[in-house]
Structure formats: structure tokens, C-alpha cells
């Protein structure tokens, strides 16, 4: 809660604060609040997925059912978009989905840091996908992978225009993928913070109004947190599919 009289920027919540300073050579790899949020995320995912399935019961408990639902959800997503080829990438897509989803959800806890609201993190994740998919494309099709940028059935004089557009759209994939997630998280949390500021700064009873709004927005944010993780996962699946099936 903001102390009275202090000016608080809505962006202050994204400030990275080192918890313990670690330096290797000239590189600063301090354990920060962002790293702490990642740690909590990883702990939550591993503990949940391990403990709920620990009994390995054929008739699942409610919690085990949640784990199985998540498993089936991503498995279905991969089969629908990539087909049988996609099974190999299931652990990666599942990890990506869970990491982004729980990262977003951890960010919804008050006073917790949202590491997915940092472009460097989302860009790194998107780059892994992009580089991985490009390598996969070259492994599957060799030099023919470049025909991905060639759209068949288009008049020949359009190609000089279309091929650069295709190349640019392909290269902008990591940017669009990372900015989409980052911007959504940034905007959502900023909006919440702005409204939270209104609750404090507005006169006594009128403050209830933005408070109500915050409650509604929090619900929306939780939806967006899920939706963005889903979008991240489904786009990854589509990119993997592109690496298998050119135009």
C-alpha cells in the first residue's frame, strides 16, 4: 500500500530488486524478485504435478484430475495443430504453457512480482521457440525450407513484394509473440495499480467505486493470464506445425 504523501508510479511494481547480489566475472546474476517469482512458479508447478499424481490412483482425486486435465489439454492442442509429429515436443510445449500460466497467476497475488511482464523474459522464451522452430524447419526440409516464404498460386510479379513481407513476418514472430504477452501483463497490472491509486486518493465513499472496478478487473486479469499462456502455447504449436508443413 502506498504511504500517504509519497508519489508512486504505476510502473514501480515492475522494478527489479536484487535479493542477493551474485556476480560471476563482470556479469551481474543477482537473485532478484523476478528470480524469486520464477522459483515460486517452478516450485508450485513441480510440487503440484508431483504430489497430485503421487498416489497414481486409477480413480483420480480432484487434484490429480486437474493435472490430468492440463496434460490432456496440451496434448489435445498439439495433436490438433501438429498431428502425430507433435508428440515429441509435448514436454516443451507443456513446460512453456505451465511456466507462463503459473508465472502470470503468481503475478496476480498481491505484492508478487510478474516476471512475464518483462520483455527480456518473454523475448527469451519466444526466441527459444523461434530458434528451435527454425532449426527444426531446416532439419526437416534442408534448403527447401526457404520455399516457406514463397506463396504458390500468386502472380509472379507479386513475388518481389510478397517474399520480403513473408520474411519480415517470419522474423517478427519472436517479437510479436513476446510483446503480446509482455504488453498484456504490463497493461493489466498497470491498470490495476492505477485504479488502486484511485481507491486511496478518492474521497472516502467514492473510493468504493474503483475498488469494485479492481475486483472485476482482477477477474479479467486472471482470464487474460490463462488466455495469454494459451495463446503462447498454441502459437508455439502452430510454428512447430509450419516447420513440418511448408505452404
Amino acid at each position, binding site marked *: 500500500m502506498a504511504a500517504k504523501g509519497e508519489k508512486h508510479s504505476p*510502473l514501480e511494481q*515492475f*522494478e*527489479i530488486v*536484487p535479493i542477493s547480489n*551474485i556476480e560471476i566475472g563482470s*556479469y*551481474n*546474476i*543477482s*537473485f*532478484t524478485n*523476478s*528470480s524469486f517469482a*520464477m*522459483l515460486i*512458479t*517452478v516450485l508450485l*508447478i*513441480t510440487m503440484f*504435478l*508431483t504430489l497430485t*499424481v503421487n498416489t*497414481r*490412483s*486409477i480413480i*483420480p482425486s480432484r487434484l*490429480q484430475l486437474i*493435472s*490430468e486435465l492440463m*496434460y*490432456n489439454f496440451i496434448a489435445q492442442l498439439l495433436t490438433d495443430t501438429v498431428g502425430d509429429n507433435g508428440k515429441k515436443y*509435448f*514436454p*516443451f510445449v*507443456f*513446460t512453456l504453457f*505451465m*511456466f507462463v500460466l503459473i508465472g502470470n497467476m503468481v503475478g496476480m497475488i498481491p505484492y508478487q512480482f510478474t*516476471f512475464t*511482464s*518483462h*520483455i*527480456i*523474459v518473454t523475448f*527469451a*522464451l519466444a526466441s527459444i521457440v523461434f530458434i528451435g522452430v527454425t532449426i527444426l524447419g531446416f532439419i526437416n526440409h534442408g534448403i527447401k525450407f526457404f520455399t516457406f516464404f514463397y506463396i504458390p498460386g500468386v502472380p509472379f510479379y507479386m513475388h518481389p513484394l510478397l517474399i520480403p513481407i513473408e520474411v519480415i513476418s517470419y522474423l517478427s514472430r519472436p517479437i510479436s509473440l513476446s510483446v503480446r504477452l*509482455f504488453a498484456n501483463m*504490463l497493461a493489466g497490472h498497470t491498470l490495476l495499480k492505477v485504479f488502486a491509486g484511485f481507491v486511496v486518493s478518492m474521497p472516502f465513499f467514492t473510493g468504493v467505486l474503483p475498488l469494485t472496478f479492481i475486483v472485476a478487473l482482477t477477474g479479467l486479469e486472471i482470464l487474460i493470464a490463462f488466455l495469454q499462456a494459451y495463446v503462447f502455447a498454441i502459437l508455439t504449436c502452430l510454428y512447430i506445425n509450419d516447420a513440418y508443413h511448408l505452404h
Partner: protein
Amino acid sequence: MPQLNPEFFISQLFWLFVFFSFLLIFLWRVSLPRIATVMEKRQNKINENLSTAKELQEQALKIEKNINFQISNAKEETDEEIKKTIISLQEEASTKLSSLEKELEVKISNSEKEIIKNRDLQMKTINEEISNITKITVSKISDLKLSDSVVNQAIQSFKGKIN
């Protein structure tokens, strides 16, 4: 904007790499195979149960068929038994009827004989009575004492005229 401050870029990338790799390896090697095993086990169990159910259903159908066969058999047997009984009863009834008829005939002929015998007896006593009455009547009218033979002769002659 803190996101654009490159001070902690390396730190964030480093910890992202550490945690994401750990998570990927852990899920890949530990969690996901567990979930997959459980679901596979369940699917196997379901398939097993389904095949058992199918087998049991087939068995039930066989048993039902058998029961129906036995029921129809039993019905046929009962029908036959009923027919046989009816026929034997009819035969018994007809033999009893014929024996009864014979008995009846014997009884009728016996009765007829009895009747004839009785009639004859009655006729005899009537004749005696007639002779007695005649004797009495004659003695009352004429003081004549008639012997039995005369009376009988007279009656016999009279009788012959009537007849």
C-alpha cells in the same frame, strides 16, 4: 520503464535459463511420465473391464438362450403329457362307461325278471282270492257249499269266455 533497464537483463536471462531448464527436465523426466503412466493404466483397466463386460454379456446371452430352449422344451413335454393324460382318461372313462352300461343292462334284466316273477305271483294270489270271493258270495246267496275244484272249474270256464 523498468523493463527497458538493461541492468538486470543478464540476471533475468540467467535465472530464466536455470529455472526453465530445471522445470523442463523435471516435467519431461518425472511428472509427465507419471501422469502418462496413470492414464495409460486407467485406459488399460477400462479396456479390460469392457472386454470382461462383453464376455459376460455373451455368456448371459448364451444362458438366456439355454433357458428359453429349456422352457420351450418343457412346454412341449407338458403339452404332450397333457395330451397323453387326456387320451388315457378318455379311454378309462369309455371303458368305465361300457362296464357301467353292461351292469345296468344286467340290473335291468334282473329287474324285469323280478317284475315278471312278482306279477305271476300276484296273478296266482288273485286267482285264489277270486275263488275264495266266489265261494263266499255263492254261500251267502244260495247256502250252497261248493268244493274248491268246482269253483276253480267254473272260474276257469268263465275266464276262458272273457279271454
